[in-house]
């Protein structure tokens, strides 16, 4: 299934060697390691972990209203506090055996996944002393740190795979012996903090067609000089002393990354999907991710954002603005899983969705909802533990009008790290968080 280019061709050596070099400041040892790895490909596999495992993160930006997503039909307070925007009981899509819960009526596609045993619903997810600032709370989720400091949690995971604790050199070696590709890819203009590691940096782009220098079409003579100038990143190191990493060094490295990634990624997304994706931004983005997975890029984490879910006014109930956002989400996700199944790659992939916070239980004066706290997370895929996990927070026992969380999001991360990615969650999360088992064992 995966491409196996001749690992000893000069091109492959150069490409893969450079991918790694450019993601690390520690160049000389890396080149050594890379050459070593090519001679010893069997060292690459992590015992017990299929090499091809992928995590796709779908971020619902702006604070998704969890209460209108997984609706607590069991709670009369829900209808009382939301006279203008509550989902009527008759419209909600009941979740199988679990009494008193229903999905938003726009999420029929997600209910299909649920019926097929591909969806896990984790309820009441949050963290202590919730922060209601979009940016702060998003940073907390992305760093897995309640002070919102440091690198991203997935960046730390990828750092650990590449050249640090636990897994030895597997991340680095992996890139050498297969189709290549960056460790993480974000579809969008800017890369999220979550993917930002000390050593491993994400690749981010919106459209693959623009992922190359256009002046080579003006004059072919320019291309070789351009290549020379943009592949100097290999020189932009200074013995690994991070603090002296200037903006100029950073630009040289990014330019090199861009050259190397350009060929790989443009080839990958040129693959046409077998499934019809919804004609909207999220649909296109999920289609691109499916194509890249299908092309065998050795990318571990894909990241995509949807929204804005910041529905302070005119949120709507069973129909309206929020409904539309949820419909795009559900339809896009369903198409994504159909495509992966058609490719035969569905077993390799786990998908997680989250938002920086839920919204207040009571609606506001503008037929909307203000920033709140706990909300559900979804895990999707054949390896997600199916069903409704954890219980819905009480709508009677509120904290100043907000739900009290009962599940720490870092427990969900811990399970993904331990059970899916086979990483040491204590180290990555920099603390012990009891895993909330979201992966089918």
């Amino acid at each position, binding site marked *: 299934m995966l491409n196996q280019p001749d690992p000893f061709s000069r091109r492959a050596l150069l490409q893969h060697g450079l991918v790694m070099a450019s993601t690390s400041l520690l160049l000389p040892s890396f080149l050594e390691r890379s050459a070593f790895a090519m001679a010893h490909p069997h060292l690459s596999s992590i015992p017990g972990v299929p090499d091809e495992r992928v995590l796709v993160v779908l971020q619902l930006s702006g604070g998704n209203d969890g209460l209108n997503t997984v609706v607590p039909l069991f709670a009369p307070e829900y209808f009382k506090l939301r006279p203008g925007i509550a989902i009527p009981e008759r419209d909600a899509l009941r979740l199988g055996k679990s009494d008193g819960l229903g999905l938003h009526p726009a999420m029929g596609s997600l209910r299909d996944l649920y019926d097929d045993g591909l969806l896990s619903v984790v309820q009441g997810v949050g963290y202590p002393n919730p922060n209601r600032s979009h940016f702060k709370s998003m940073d907390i989720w992305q760093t897995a740190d309640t002070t919102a400091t440091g*690198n991203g949690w997935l960046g730390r995971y990828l750092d650990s795979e590449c*050249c*640090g604790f636990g897994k030895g050199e597997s991340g680095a070696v992996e890139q050498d012996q297969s189709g290549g590709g960056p460790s993480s890819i974000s579809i969008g203009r800017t890369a999220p903090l979550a993917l930002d590691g*000390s050593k491993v940096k994400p690749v981010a782009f919106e459209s693959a067609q623009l992922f190359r220098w256009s002046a080579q079409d003006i004059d072919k003579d*320019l291309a070789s*000089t351009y290549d020379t100038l943009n592949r100097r990143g290999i020189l932009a190191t200074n013995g690994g002393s991070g603090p002296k990493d*200037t903006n100029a060094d*950073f630009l040289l490295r990014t330019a090199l990354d861009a050259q190397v990634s350009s060929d790989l990624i443009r080839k990958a997304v040129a693959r046409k999907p077998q499934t019809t994706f919804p004609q909207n931004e999220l649909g296109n983005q999920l289609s691109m991710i499916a194509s890249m997975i299908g092309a065998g890029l050795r990318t571990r984490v894909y990241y995509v954002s949807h929204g804005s879910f910041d529905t302070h006014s005119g949120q709507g109930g069973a129909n309206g603005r929020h409904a539309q956002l949820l419909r795009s989400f559900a339809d896009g996700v369903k198409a994504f899983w159909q495509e992966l199944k058609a490719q035969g790659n569905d077993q390799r992939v786990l998908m997680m969705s989250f938002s920086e916070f839920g919204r207040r239980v009571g609606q506001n004066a*503008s037929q909307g909802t203000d920033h709140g706290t706990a909300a559900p997370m979804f895990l999707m895929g054949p390896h997600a533990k199916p069903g409704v996990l954890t219980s819905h927070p009480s709508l009677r026992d509120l904290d100043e009008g907000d739900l009290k969380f009962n599940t720490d999001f870092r427990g969900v991360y811990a399970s993904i790290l331990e059970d899916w990615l086979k990483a040491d969650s204590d180290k990555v999360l920099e603390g012990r968080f009891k895993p909330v088992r979201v992966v089918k064992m």
Partner: protein
Amino acid sequence: MPHALRQPKDVRPEAQVSEPERDSQPDDKISPSLGAINPEQFGYAQARHLIWRAGFGGTDEQIRLLVRWGPEKSVDHLLNFGEKATMPAFEPLGAGQYRDDIMREPTDEERRAYRMAQQAQNEDELARLRNLRQDREQEDRRQIGEVQKWWLKRMIQTRAPLEEKMTLFWHGHFATSYRAIENSYHMLAQNQMFRANAAGNYGELLAGIIRDPAMLAYLDNNDSRKDRPNENLAREIMELFSLGVGNFNEEDIKQGARALTGYTFESNEFKFRKNNHDSGIKSILGQKGGWDGDDFVKIILGKRECARFVMRRMYHFLVADMPPDERMGASSVGPATRSVLRELGDMLFARKYNLKPVLRRLLLSHHFYDDTIMAQQIKSPAMLVVGAVRGLETPVRDLQLLNQAMDMMGQRLFFPPSVKGWDGGRTWINTSTLFVRQNVLAFLLSGQLPRGVDGTANTEKYDSLALLKASTDPAVAAKDVGAVTDHLLKLALGRAPAAGSDAIRGYFAREGNQVKERAVTGALLLITAMPEYQLC
């Protein structure tokens, strides 16, 4: 190699690598002095730095003019833009009249017609009324496109570049997006308010923002009433516009939101609705009283932390990358930078938030011209695009396309990504925005569009040889390849790095060592695709 300001990412020591202690890397090589530099220290590099940071770059002749003027005259010229003839307020581009009332609220009569149609269940009439509204929305989206083009053109043409630069700063600081408010006139009016106080008084801007229809709509204050205050505006004012995290608490937000109730607008004008205002006693930042929104602003301005916070944001925009404020512990910038920031922040406070004296001090200071500050800032997309036209004198070609490219590079004017504005610094750059940056320069220089972009190539001629005519170096005039290479590199990058020199000379050699327009344009395509071109 120059020593850089440390990035927040680098502060965290990696457990698994034993390296020299990172916190022992002070910025003690950066000058902490805010004393003015001497005229003899103000050479080509310094003048070029000034015209980039206090504007959008300039031509070789403009830079040499500033050198002749010396630092004081140059800085005063850039700062005192109010005295020069500035451009007319708004000249809509394109055909058709600009309408400032197109997104007005429905009149009573229109509401009545809609209600009647609803009651009569007259679906055709309802659809007709809805279509009318949609037509106006569509027309206003066209209008915001015109406003975008107008501002970009203004940045390119202005004789007062610092005015536009600071207007852009305030746009990112008090970030408001058309996407949420869907009213191009409100965005334009806000832009004019920023421009009127571009280097004026921050206090007036903060007082203006709570009366600004665009902001009131963006942060939902128009829906905030006594019985149900909306906290959005009070929160963002304290967190992002004035004090920064850590200098207020949740209770201050709640009380501030009460003070702001009733601050709303009607059509294009601010309106205070007394009936919706909560005139009760509130306690804000330790002060008790029957405060309204203007008192709320005054209480904030009375805090020294406010001046320091605003100063940090300006420093990040004009001088060097700063870690985001939320993450800025005392240790995340070095002592020299810290002392400069404190001194300037306190000066802003002492001068009652008048910006000009503080900017003057900064732009003349030793610190500002430090080697580690010059040519180390990553250009914003606006600086990249405007700077290329102003400095390399390329044709403008297509304002709409340039706006689209700016969107892809992460800076769509009037559409900041969130109320936090643009983060700037390294967040502008990733592998894909780097390609867009190279490609927009290729478009400006050659007129050629990248594959996958709709539209036809622009055929306006770019006279690259004109860049050589201005040079005072006889070897450039004589079309000596080495001299021409260095001239072009210095113009575009401020210096001629060896790797660039070798590569460009090699390119000229393959072109037969002929300094012709085609080859000079080719050399510029290559130079502007160099990673170093992203810096200013």
